[in-house]
């Protein structure tokens, strides 16, 4: 079966600056979120996927085709860029008709399809208004309209929620959820995690041009369990627990919290902590009232991965160990 993406040692340099660094990944068709802070390399990767940029090293295939060598791929991919839509003196309908005709559509089909797609994105009533008079949200929807107008198999969106009000965000999310449900592929680049978690369960975390992690939310949470993190333990036998923990090599720091029965632990291998706590509790050495780790969401994982990538300590906010 044809894969959505195949990256083989994919790298791109802007002179001496690394845009994308040695990506090695194969993904089947589906919906994916490309998550990373601003400047992480998301847009560069999208540029490579669309054929706008050529890799300095390595190779890539999108829907089984090399984007640098074939223009047929452009008919199968729709792109909604992150940049502001700055088109003056034309209506959204005129603009859409132009882009459809540039895709090789006849005039009649272009006009029909432009009307249809503008209705889909909720711009039917504003179709004959110049784009420069649109609000930011309307321009965002106009960009989405051009991306889906030619019926692509893969929709790529770069920061599609930028500039949208809460209602607009909800509507955009709904639309993308429907798109993903229809069985078509989706690549959604964003720096806001919670916005994309509703749309897809598959993530690629990118930072500094490197792919830090990829997988489903479940896979990433399992990965989270293996990364250094802070865990808060509520125990009536706090001092005994602290002394037991202090001997363990995977404990980086033990911090007494202001609450009398709480310990804040910085742990290298959380799974080993959970095993040890279970064993001590079952043998009656300690009593455990509550364990609350990092919140377990993808953003925590992302923060931890970035910290590791930067060579920082796992967690900085615990204060000095005692």
């Amino acid at each position: 079966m044809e894969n959505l993406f195949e990256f083989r040692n994919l790298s791109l340099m802007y002179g001496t600056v690394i845009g994308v660094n040695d990506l090695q990944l194969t993904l089947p068709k589906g919906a994916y979120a490309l998550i990373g802070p601003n400047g992480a390399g998301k847009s560069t990767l999208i540029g490579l996927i669309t054929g706008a940029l050529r890799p300095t090293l390595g190779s890539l295939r999108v829907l089984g085709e090399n984007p640098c060598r074939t223009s047929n791929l452009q008919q199968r991919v729709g792109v909604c860029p992150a940049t502001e839509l700055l088109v003056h003196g034309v209506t959204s309908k005129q603009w859409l008709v132009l882009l459809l005709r540039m895709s090789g559509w006849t005039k009649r089909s272009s006009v029909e399809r432009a009307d249809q797609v503008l209705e889909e994105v909720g711009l039917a009533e504003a179709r004959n208004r110049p784009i420069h008079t649109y609000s930011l949200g309307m321009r965002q929807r106009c960009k989405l309209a051009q991306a889906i107008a030619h019926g692509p198999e893969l929709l790529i969106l770069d920061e599609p929620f930028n500039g949208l009000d809460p209602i607009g965000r909800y509507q955009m999310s709904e639309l993308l959820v429907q798109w993903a449900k229809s069985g078509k592929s989706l690549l959604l680049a964003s720096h806001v995690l919670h916005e994309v978690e509703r749309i897809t369960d598959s993530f690629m975390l990118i930072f500094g041009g490197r792919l830090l992690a990829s997988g489903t939310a479940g896979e990433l949470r399992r990965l989270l369990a293996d990364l250094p993190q802070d865990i808060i333990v509520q125990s009536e036998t706090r001092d005994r627990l602290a002394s037991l923990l202090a001997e363990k090599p995977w404990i980086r720091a033990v911090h007494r919290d202001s609450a009398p029965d709480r310990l804040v632990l910085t742990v290298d291998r959380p799974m080993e902590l959970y095993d040890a706590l279970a064993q001590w509790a079952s043998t009656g050495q300690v009593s455990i009232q509550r364990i609350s780790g990092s919140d377990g969401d993808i953003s925590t994982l992302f923060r931890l991965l970035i910290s590791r990538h930067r060579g920082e300590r796992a967690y900085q906010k615990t204060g000095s160990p005692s």
Partner: protein
Amino acid sequence: MSSPSKDYAKPDEYAWKDEAGQGILASLFRATPGVVSYELARSRTPARIAMFVLMVGIPTALLIAVANLTPERFRANQQTNIAFCVLLYALVPQVMTMLGMLVLASPIVHTELEGQTWIYSLIRYRGRRSLLLGKYIVAVLWTTTAGILVTSLSIPFLPLQNPGKAWLTISLLCVLSSLAYGALFILIGVVFQKRVMVISFVYALLAEGLLAWIPAVVNQFTIAFRLRSILFRWLDLSVEKFFRSDGMVSNGMVAEDPTGFVQIGWVLAITALLLALALWLVERLQYSFQSEL
């Protein structure tokens, strides 16, 4: 936004294969008229119309003023006829058309990059080529129309011996000049991403303004040489009288082509070559528009 699910569930209705499963030329012929009509609709702005009025008004006023200043006793003179034919040629197909194309054609890619709209043609099937070709055609239409208008408005006031023939020749030269200079400046605009207008202007000044007047083999590589040769041959202008030397043809100031048709062929061949090169390069060059995506 309305619920889109029903439309996404039937993608084949608007599948690209039905519409664009065609060859390069066929898709270009389908896409380019779309760009032309879009650009024409978009270019009817007060600024563009004002520029057009200036393009037409300034050379027309200049030509009529010079004609009015010519003493009556010189008006029937053959030398005056040559001078006004050359002045008309220099002002309209040479300077006005060349500068018009420089302003309209050379920044095509640059404007798209600056306006952050390049990405939208980049991700279209033949988008870059159809955009370039469509905008080129619009630039040629604007400039040629302006050139023919200037010629039509000014010729009745000029002391020419054969105004009809002069109108026909200068109008043809406007068309040829727009086509060739447009292709040249588009190529410069495709190759250079920064300071396109400056580079185009310097090239126009050095090659078409200076090199074209050097009586040596090198001037045969310029568009101005071909256009000038057509002017002299079609209007039966005496090369010897104008240049005050009978050695100018052999020296290469005007082509040895008694009909001028070979020169038309040359101009069209140069146009086709430059345009083909620009269309080939625009699909292959990587433009720095990182902020675009």
